[in-house]
């Protein structure tokens, strides 16, 4: 999976496509992305539980009661109506499967899977149909399906509602997986994903939802390319890689490290599959050290992939073994006293970096 020439160009260096930029929250940025994608293409529809809310009660004066479990789709039903903003029963296998079928027959469905852990009830549709149809059918059918889902611990929701399991999806050839790290990348990745002709899953971390930081968000639609990592911050001594929320952890850790006199390069991986191997390898060949920060479970994970990639393809450049900062091989605990110990923290990243820098 070599990134092609196009992907080699750092997309950030092209600059924002407009001067009309605003500080939006992550939610606002996503909402705008979906709205614009729906305006530009009438085949885009959205499905999910409570993505509008109070379905069927327009006559009683109720509409858009929820606007999505995390309000990502708020206000869309007023513009696009219930045919395109479609509330579903709690039948994920049913409506994700319907998303696959709709995608294979000319629509571009965006389907909301409330939490990534609910993958369990619709895994067949994602892994056996969405991921495989294009290949099994000899390339003759496309499945331009986008799934958006919530990930992450930090809200005391316990083991079933706090998973960050993009590694599972990335395991399957045929799926693309992207993880926005701020409002800017969220808008761009949503637009790229919806326009993409392959099934793409977008993983939104709970803790980023209210976030307003990062680059300002241009008004018009723009793409953040799928398959391309972003060097958020250049550095010379050590590479810190983050995904989604952990990119923010890495940025903070880099600031602390700089106070200790170390120059850390922060790579925001952004796409879990296909992985941008080149950007990671280039960075680590320069810094000769890497700390991989990820909130997903450690076994058979994206973090393992990055570590293995660097070990295998930049072996001679490394001054220290690759180092992963992930949760331990455990589930997400409920207690306020335990949950913070699960999530990678700035302190743990700084400590790991300091160690590889010895």
């Amino acid at each position, binding site marked *: 999976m070599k990134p092609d020439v196009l992907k080699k160009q750092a997309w950030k260096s092209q600059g924002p496509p407009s001067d009309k930029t605003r500080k939006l929250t992550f939610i606002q940025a996503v909402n705008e992305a979906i709205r614009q994608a729906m305006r530009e293409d009438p085949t885009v529809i959205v499905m999910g539980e409570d993505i509008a809310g109070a379905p069927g009660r327009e006559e009683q004066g109720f509409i858009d009661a929820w606007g999505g479990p995390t309000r990502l789709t708020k206000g869309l039903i007023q513009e696009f109506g219930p045919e395109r903003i479609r509330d579903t029963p*709690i039948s994920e296998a049913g409506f994700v499967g319907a998303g696959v079928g709709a995608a294979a027959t000319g629509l571009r469905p965006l389907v909301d899977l409330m939490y990534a852990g609910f993958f369990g009830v619709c895994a067949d549709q994602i892994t056996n149909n969405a991921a495989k149809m294009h290949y099994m059918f000899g390339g003759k059918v496309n499945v331009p399906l986008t799934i958006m889902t919530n990930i992450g611990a930090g809200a005391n929701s316990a*083991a079933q509602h706090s998973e960050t399991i993009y590694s599972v999806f990335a395991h399957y050839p045929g799926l693309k997986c992207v993880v926005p790290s701020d409002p800017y990348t969220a808008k761009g990745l949503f637009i790229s994903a919806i326009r993409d002709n392959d099934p793409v899953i977008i993983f939104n971390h709970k803790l980023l939802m209210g976030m307003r930081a990062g680059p300002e968000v241009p008004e018009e639609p723009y793409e953040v390319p799928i398959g391309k990592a972003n060097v958020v911050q250049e550095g010379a001594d050590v590479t810190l890689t983050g995904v989604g929320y952990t990119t923010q952890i890495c940025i903070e850790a880099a600031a602390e490290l700089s106070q200790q006199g170390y120059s850390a390069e922060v790579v925001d991986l952004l796409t879990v599959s296909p992985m941008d191997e080149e950007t990671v390898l280039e960075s680590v060949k320069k810094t000769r050290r890497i700390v991989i920060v990820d909130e997903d479970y450690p076994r058979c994970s994206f973090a393992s992939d990055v570590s293995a990639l660097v070990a295998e393809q930049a072996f001679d450049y490394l001054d220290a073994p690759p180092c992963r900062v992930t949760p331990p091989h455990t589930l997400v605990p409920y*207690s306020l006293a335990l949950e913070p110990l699960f999530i990678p923290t700035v302190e743990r990243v700084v400590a790991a970096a300091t160690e590889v820098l010895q």
Partner: protein
Amino acid sequence: MANTSATLDKKTLLWMYETMVVIRKFEESSKREADAGKLRGMHSSIGQEAVPTGISAHLRDDDYALGTHRSHHHCIAKGVDLNEMMAELLGKATGTNKGKGGTMHIADINKGMLGANGVVGSNIPVAVGAALSAKVKGNDSVSVVYFGDGAANQGSLHEAMNLASIWKLPVIFVCENNRYAESTPFEYSVAGESVAKRAEGYAMPGVEADGQSVLEMWEVGKEAIRRARAGEGPTLIEAMTYRYHGHFGADDPLNYRTQEEEDYYEARDCVEQLKNHILDTGKATEEELASLDEKAGVSVSAATKFADESPFPLPEELTTDVYVNV
């Protein structure tokens, strides 16, 4: 539904009254704790007290109950300790689950509470397994699984009903139809607008019951559990009920339902109804009921105090209990 309340003895009536009052007070207290920021993600069961209470009146500790994300009432009705429950809500080491599960996962195997479950529909097949255990072991335990009207659209229900029916397992499927799945109205999401009716396709009785009447719940529960114990197979009960609060703390239900509708259900409040029934039939006095109210208040306060004062789990608990043996 024949009203057999006349045949109900005082002890059962008062147990049901007390249980419902305890549930309500527990939920009021847990809401206060949530509002104070001590827990998050709580789904209040206020309004639905009668459903598990009427059913649990027929259950033993060696019967199983399985719940949902909204399960405090199932747990209390099944006899789970209030102190340990409240401690669990606050993530304390003394909680039913040592603070690791929280509000959506309370379990107490000694009381037959095989766990609340945060994935909608997920517990339904698990309940079939508990019933299978009873059958293979040759005892007469039964398994009760609660789920919502929203959960009725999960495929797991249908697989489970079919399995339980062909194997004649002692399962009671109890749908708490509170008319909403989050903000999604029942009449939108359930084709045919009846969960009970679906039972027929699986060759099992499907009974619709007034979930605001604990007497009616007691009645339908009695027959379903009798059938199950006798090896006659599963029953599906659709209990028509209502949640008074939003789906979770921050949800304002008036965004998707009317004040009239809320008033209609609150006017038929399950606790009030039972109270009136007891007083009307002279089964107990105002004072007796008031003393049960007070007793309930005392136990819930004690539970809250116990929870507040309990220690948090130690850091090493993060990685224990992943496996039984490593």
